[in-house]
């Protein structure tokens, strides 16, 4: 298709590999959500959880429509409204502290009528747009110095700080990693890179001492030594690994994973859907799933490389990075190679804001792909 000049000239063409990859992940995600929540079918007090896959379908339909809308309008228009969106996102992040709904000690949600949404989710897209715009406008060819990077750093660190204050370590981490991935596209002075790394190394213990909450520190320590902490997160991580290991080569079968069915997996529909999937489908099935994520991530780099401008390329890299870091962190924590921070598995985990955000991002990716 890439070499088909005529079709290119005929106007925007749907990127089939991307579409198929995303649809495949969404399908597996729904099937897995059904399995994950089937535990609650006979549980009177939590029976409504057994039906959340239906809600998830609604979100996917809504998300798909938004994605089509986002893809339909030439992405270059977004470059102009990016600052507005960014500002709006920042305002809503600020509003969280005023109107925020407390869920387990952190306020991440804003209630609008019957609909609660997470501004920090949508901010991911606005931030990507904003950073893409900055990258686009910075057309220098010589490597950037620290001073050159200062404005964009400020733009990035502002929402990171706000989200950190909610507190939501996982999301702020995603902001940082996604933006750094985008900035890495530019040439930066070696000295600047080194000093940034040094700053990072120094700020980490400082963050540990002054910024991070006790429960966040606890997650890190329990990750480093899960045997010592068998209460909360450490136990969750161990049970998740047991579930994955229990899948063995071919899996226990659909809705047969005992770790899930007997209630040993906490947050199995939001934080640990990967463990449910691995236990049900085993090594073969899980390799297919990881392969799909890897494909979409690499395909987004391919799209970036085909983009006709810096904005589009940065946008594609940003969305790809968003997907990549989400997937790597969620899968990594399920397998015990990364600490348990509440990062969802994109297109897999249950959650409206998360689904809408991801599909919005993929709509942008499709947009870039169609207009190269």
């Amino acid at each position, binding site marked *: 298709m890439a070499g088909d000049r005529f079709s290119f000239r005929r106007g925007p063409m749907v990127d089939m590999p991307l579409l198929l990859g995303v649809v495949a992940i969404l399908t597996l995600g729904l099937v897995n959500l059904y399995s994950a929540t089937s535990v609650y079918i006979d549980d009177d007090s939590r029976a409504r959880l057994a039906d959340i896959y239906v809600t998830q379908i609604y979100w996917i339909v809504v998300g798909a429509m938004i994605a089509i809308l986002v893809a339909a309008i030439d992405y270059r228009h977004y470059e102009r409204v990016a600052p507005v969106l960014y500002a709006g996102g920042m305002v809503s992040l600020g509003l969280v502290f005023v109107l925020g709904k407390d869920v387990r000690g952190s306020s991440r949600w804003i209630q609008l009528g019957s609909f609660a949404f997470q501004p920090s989710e949508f901010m991911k897209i606005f931030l990507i747009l904003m950073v893409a715009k900055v990258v686009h406008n910075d057309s220098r*060819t010589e490597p950037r110095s620290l001073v050159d990077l200062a404005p964009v750093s400020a733009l990035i660190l502002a929402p990171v700080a706000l989200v950190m204050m909610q507190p939501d370590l996982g999301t702020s981490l995603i902001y940082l990693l996604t933006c750094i991935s985008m900035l890495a596209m530019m040439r930066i002075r070696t000295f600047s890179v080194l000093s940034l790394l040094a700053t990072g190394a120094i700020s980490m213990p400082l963050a540990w001492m002054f910024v991070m909450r006790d429960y966040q520190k606890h997650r890190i320590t329990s990750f480093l030594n899960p045997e010592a902490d*068998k209460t909360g997160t450490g136990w969750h991580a161990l049970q998740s690994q047991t579930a994955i*290991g229990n899948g063995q*080569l071919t899996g226990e079968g659909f809705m047969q994973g005992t770790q899930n069915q007997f*209630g040993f997996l906490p947050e199995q529909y939001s934080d640990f859907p990967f463990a449910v999937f691995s236990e049900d489908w085993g090594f073969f099935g899980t390799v297919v799933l990881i*392969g799909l994520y*890897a494909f979409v991530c690499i395909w987004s780099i391919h799209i970036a490389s085909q983009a006709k401008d810096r904005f589009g390329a940065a946008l594609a890299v940003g969305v790809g990075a968003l997907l990549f870091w989400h997937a790597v962190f969620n899968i990594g924590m399920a397998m015990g*190679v990364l600490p348990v921070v509440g990062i969802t598995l994109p297109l897999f985990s249950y959650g409206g804001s998360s689904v809408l955000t991801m599909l919005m991002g993929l709509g942008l990716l499709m947009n870039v792909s169609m207009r190269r």
Partner: protein
Amino acid sequence: MLVQRSDVGEFRQRYRWLVLVAVAAFSILIGRLAQLQIVEGDLHRAQARRNIVRERSLATTRGVIRDSFGRVLAANRPSYSVHITPAEIDLETTWPRVMKVVQLDEFERAAIEKRISDIKALPKEDKRRGQQILLKVDVDRDVVAFLETHEKALNGVEVTPAPVRYYPYGELGAHAVGYMREVDAEALERLDERGYRAGDHIGAIGIERRWESYLRGQRGWRKMVRGIARRESNAEIDAKYLEEPRRLEPIPGRDISLTMDIDLVASIEKGMRGQLAGAVVVVDVRTGRLLAALSKPSFDPNVVSGGNGTKAVGAAFRRLNSDPLKPTMDKTISAAYPPGSTYKPFTALAALADRVTDPDREVDCHGGFEYGKRFFRCTGVHRKVNLHSAIVQSCNTYFYELGSRLSIDRLAAIGLDFGFGVKTGIGVNPEARGRMPTRSWYTRRYKEAFRGGFTLLSAIGQGATTVSVLQLALSYAALANGGTLYQPQVVRSIETSDGTVVQDFPPRVRRMVELDQDHLTMVKNALTGVVAEKTGTAYKERIPGLDLAGKTGTAQVSHVTPRGVDPDKVWYFNRDHAWFAGYAPSKSPEIAIVVIIEHGGGGGKNAAPVAMRVVRDWEKLKEKRVSAQTPAHPPGKRGSL
């Protein structure tokens, strides 16, 4: 205005690196996946199974204790306990529902609620989370029905059958049969290896204790899948997740048949009504088997075994332990008393064997015997008495005189021959050894020169001489059967729960006492005379037509009791013990019987009637059984409650 084309060339060299990072990251994830699912897969599978499989123990049934005619003396009454697994209890929903039916008082409820929340607060991997606690024992049937019908909604609540030991005959034979007590923490540590757990019961005394290992049986276990998944039937789930073996059947305890006849025990109880404290033993003179034993006062083993609840147990023990009459002591075995005149036949046999007297030689009793500077009193003035009439009338003077001709060691020796001073080896309850004092014992004890007077006291069964009721019964059995001292037996056979005899205990002879049969006949004639002759000490209490031989005894307890004082006015614990020791029928003896009434006064007046009555009842029972053609030990046939 759309953005202008800009230079994307700067990015070109980055894409390769991005792809590399992505490929590397996903490869690491797949590597880790392979490690978890393939390399360590079996380990995790095993852990996952451990998570969902739980082992539940299956109760065993304790063996039944029967008397020699198959009547049940100790069995198990069905009863149910409620256990809870605190980690699985929902304090908001389940707990109030359980509390509605299981009534606990405020204090208990608060204590258990605290334990539940303590255990719930433990780390999820803590082993203690799996532990169960006992909520209530012996709950009503309605409660059992409610809890079982609502089983699924009441997660963490379990109704377990916990049979309660039941003793249909209550106090009868309680000391020999025994009772059950809950194992305490200290014993639990020792018994852990043998599978005892908190809340288990263990035989406390008697047969229940001594034969605990036979009676107890062995617990089984069953693996089951726990948790909330219940879409499939339990059988399907079990088939899928449980490895073989899934179940180990419990082994029921052995049943034990005793040599005792509970009817005879009942008749002893009737005979002893009106007496405060004492003991009776009946043994088979041809086998040494214990036919009946009663220790008074007794206790109800049902209450102290927990049949009426835990609180009743505590109250019962407080009462029993504060009773000066020592109801918990088995007075047939664990207590030693001065035998008094019942010991005289053995003094006579020693004197005859040593040829220090002629049976016809007469001694003039004028109320006592002067020895050295002391005067040893007799019970009366008997005038001229020979061996026969001295036994019949129980003349102390004659035996003091015999004592002066014998050494104290000789008296101890014949006592040892007849089994006094050593444990009989009955194997139930702690045995009192009794004492046959010797010269060296006295010198050791008093650290002064041995005095001949001690021998005189030994000759009439006083002084330092003590015997247990069982020892005396066995020695009279030996007199009756011509000198065979048997090992006493209380267990006749051990059976499996379906009635197959696995072990049988034939009579065992301890010793043949060397006796001149002529001497023995003389003594036995005298023992017959005690009941049959007008001058006999038990003559007044005889039952016409009852053929019984024996010897009365009035054993002095206190040295300070002045003579001639109305015995009813003496402090109870200073009054004399009343004895009767004998056998029946007198010509071809079958049973030996010993009765002691603690502080009961004169043996002839108080102990002899009890013995007469018991022997009469024994004869009646024998006739009834012969006419009913019931074999003594019906094979395979069981008496029921």
